[in-house]
């Protein structure tokens, strides 16, 4: 009995390592496990954000923070903690690289009336309220750089949730400075920023 258990455990281990070593390709099991929720071309599917075109270093870091239970908002707990639990460093890297290589499309689902206000906050911040200008780190077209995520074209609801969750104290261990920057934003400022960003290509 004990011998059978060991055999099963070994077999499971071999299978899981083999799966994790497969290169991430369209149609591969690992990719399909992501696209069930993130959409067939990884353009996002509420509440799962678009992964296409995201910075690979950012995706890798997020996978790590799900696995370590640092990113702790309700949907992360419910889905991503398990999804990322058994990813090896190599498979996380391969998946991140694959999704980063896909062409991102803008969600275009914000409130158009708030775009001008959102653009002003994005580009100038609100110095009198100690709100930093997003453009300094995320770039003039919100394309991100290195480990700093692309925000342009993400869906309104995802952007709004993410900023509001920091405001509510979730994901407090995220890299400086986002927990603090987001906590300075009022709900109407978050709505304006999310609207502006959702239309950016």
């Amino acid at each position, binding site marked *: 009995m004990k011998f059978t258990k060991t055999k099963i455990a070994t077999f499971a281990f071999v299978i899981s390592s083999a799966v994790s070593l497969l290169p991430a390709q369209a149609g591969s099991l690992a990719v399909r496990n992501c696209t069930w929720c993130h959409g067939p071309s990884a353009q996002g599917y509420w509440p799962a954000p678009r992964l296409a075109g995201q910075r690979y270093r950012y995706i890798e870091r997020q996978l790590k923070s799900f696995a370590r239970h640092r990113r702790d908002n309700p949907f992360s707990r419910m889905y991503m903690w398990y999804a990322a639990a058994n990813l090896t460093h190599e498979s996380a890297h391969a998946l991140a690289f694959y999704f980063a290589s896909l062409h991102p499309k803008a969600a275009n689902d914000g409130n158009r009336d708030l775009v001008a206000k959102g653009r002003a906050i994005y580009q100038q911040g609100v110095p009198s309220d100690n709100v930093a200008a997003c453009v300094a780190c995320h770039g003039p077209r919100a394309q991100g*750089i290195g480990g700093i995520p692309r925000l342009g074209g993400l869906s309104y609801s995802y952007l709004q949730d993410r900023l509001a969750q920091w405001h509510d104290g979730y994901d407090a261990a995220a890299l*400086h400075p986002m927990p*603090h920057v987001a906590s300075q934003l009022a709900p109407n400022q978050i709505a304006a920023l999310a609207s502006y960003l959702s239309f950016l290509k």
Partner: protein
Amino acid sequence: MTCITSTKHAAHRTSRAIPHHDSQKRGAAMSWRLVLPLAIAAVTFSGASGYAATPSSVQAKIRYCKDCHGLSAQGYRGYYPIPRLAGQQPQYLKNQLRAFINRSRPNPIMSNVAHVLRPGMIDAIASYFHRLHPPPIGGGPRGLVAAGRSIFENGVPQDDIAACAACHGPHATGRGEIPRLAGQLYHYVVKELSNFPRERGQNPAIHGPSFIMLPVAHSLNRHQIRAVAAFVSSLR
């Protein structure tokens, strides 16, 4: 205060007068030319005289600076390189904040930031950041450090380039209005030296140490700039 209030009123009066000129394009343009400086002056002065800084508002402002410049003000590589403020000379920091306000140093983000600083904040912020001493964040090409050290310490006599150490000090710590370079971000130093006239020297009416740097920065070629930046960014 009386003078400031009257400036504000003047700006209000002039701005109210604008719609009457709408039909006459030239008149409108003329009045904008009058209104803008007045409005800017009004905003600047009201910002500077409205209400003094409380200790908690200074703390909140310092926290705000750190959002971009790093938690220990060690600098940050965002989309744009954001300079290290830690250990910086207070007089230099104050001069730069004023240069952002009067736009002799053009930087849209920092102009807006500096414009809303209350009196007392600039001094408090400058002396706070001067006291911090985190290690440099690094990231410069190590292979260029030796060449950079040579330029920093001896200059390039055949190209008439002065030794940086002559003004910035043997350990690149700066003095008074001359900035500390030690530990500064590699990419930031490269960016500033490569675009010195555009970054620092837009207003010839305002003479400062930036104008001493203008010809020096101009004489350095790309390789020399990268070498010097690699050297100073490695210094503690």
